[in-house]
């Protein structure tokens, strides 16, 4: 292995760690334009989609587990985000393989939109299995959260997807 390739790998690691840290911190922040009905974009989900879109199912799964653990640390252990983010990682990676989706912002935004719905459904199902609230209330919350979060996340997705994807594409070229 030559020196530059090692440095690139190190840089890539740094980019990954910093972007994940940034996404987790953005979750706490509410800026004007980043909020709808008191709900912000799901940055960690956007990160998982950006990561998995050109990677294998296994890599998507591992990203889901890792970021799910971090997200759980920010809220509570149950209902867990691991299940929802693993679903997102795996589905995004397999979507890419099967449909040969074009690489543009609109399709990324669309993928994020549907992935948020999938993730929120997984959370809502876990929530209703806890039997602490009437199902009717959970269903109302689910509708409100899923629509607002999906809309905002898909609008903000390119802001994260573009720089990360650009970096990883250039990295692949350089490594070749």
């Amino acid at each position: 292995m030559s020196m530059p390739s090692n440095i690139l790998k190190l840089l890539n690691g740094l980019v990954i760690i910093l972007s994940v840290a940034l996404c987790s911190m953005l979750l706490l922040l509410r800026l004007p334009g980043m909020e709808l009905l008191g709900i912000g974009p799901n940055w960690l989900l956007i990160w998982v989609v950006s990561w998995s879109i050109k990677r294998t199912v296994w890599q998507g799964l591992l990203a889901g587990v890792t970021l799910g653990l971090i997200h759980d640390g920010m809220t509570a252990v149950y209902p867990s985000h691991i299940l929802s983010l693993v679903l997102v990682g795996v589905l995004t990676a397999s979507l890419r393989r099967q449909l040969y989706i074009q690489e543009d912002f609109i399709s990324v935004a669309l993928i994020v939109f549907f992935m948020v719905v999938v993730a929120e459904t997984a959370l809502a199902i876990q929530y209703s299995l806890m039997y602490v609230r009437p199902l009717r209330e959970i269903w109302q919350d689910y509708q409100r959260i899923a629509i607002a979060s999906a809309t905002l996340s898909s609008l903000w997705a390119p802001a994260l997807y573009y720089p990360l994807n650009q970096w990883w594409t250039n990295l692949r070229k350089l490594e070749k």
Partner: protein
Amino acid sequence: MGHWWIKHGLSTTLICIAISAAWFLEQTGVAPLTEIYYFLVSPFLSKQQLILEDKLTNARILELEQRIAELEQQNQQLQKFLDYSQNQQQPIINAPIIGRSADRWWQQVTLGKGKNDGIEQGFIVTGIGGLVGRVIQVTPHTSRVLLISDANSRVGAVVSRSRHLGFIQGGSYQTVVMRFFTKVADVRPGDTIATSHLSRLYPSGFPLGKVKSVNVNSGEALEAEIELTAPLNLLEWVLVHPFTPKLEPTSETLLPLN
């Protein structure tokens, strides 16, 4: 094995490191991240707000302190008769809200003060208007508060006028549901609700809100919709009161929260 290791050793190690790092973050309640977040956000906290808020809260505190002093004196005199010993009062801590919930299913806020300022887990948080929530996690500079409007939060409550008992459970941001322990209770729209002496995680007597409507035909127990008096999503500064819960939250009293 050797061949496999040469090919996949590095990536396997990296995966292990990534997962264990994430696990560590999860176990610590992402304390390192919230600490970094605090140092990034704190320069942007507007001091203007702080000064104004300080003036307002100080004025209010002064007023209340005077009233408390007055009452304390009366109380002391009465207690002298009763030969009562009083606990040491700890100071109230003023803290800014620097972050909101990380997820839409939870209603939590992050405060810009933590262990270094004397905040501990279980302390009670109030804002202008009444009770806000309780501290569920602390790092050196930040602390996380579970709001009373969170669906996982339950607070023992009492109707101030008629002393009927029940508990409130969160739902949406500004309105919560109070469920009474009895089928019939003397409660009317406009009644004020405070924390009850049966509450184990909150001290009694903190104002919560006002009754908005009473729902009579809802199955077993009587339900009332309560409008919280503290504007939870508008608050920027809160007060943290030292409090030791009478009971650590267990699965019986509270749902798993780290």
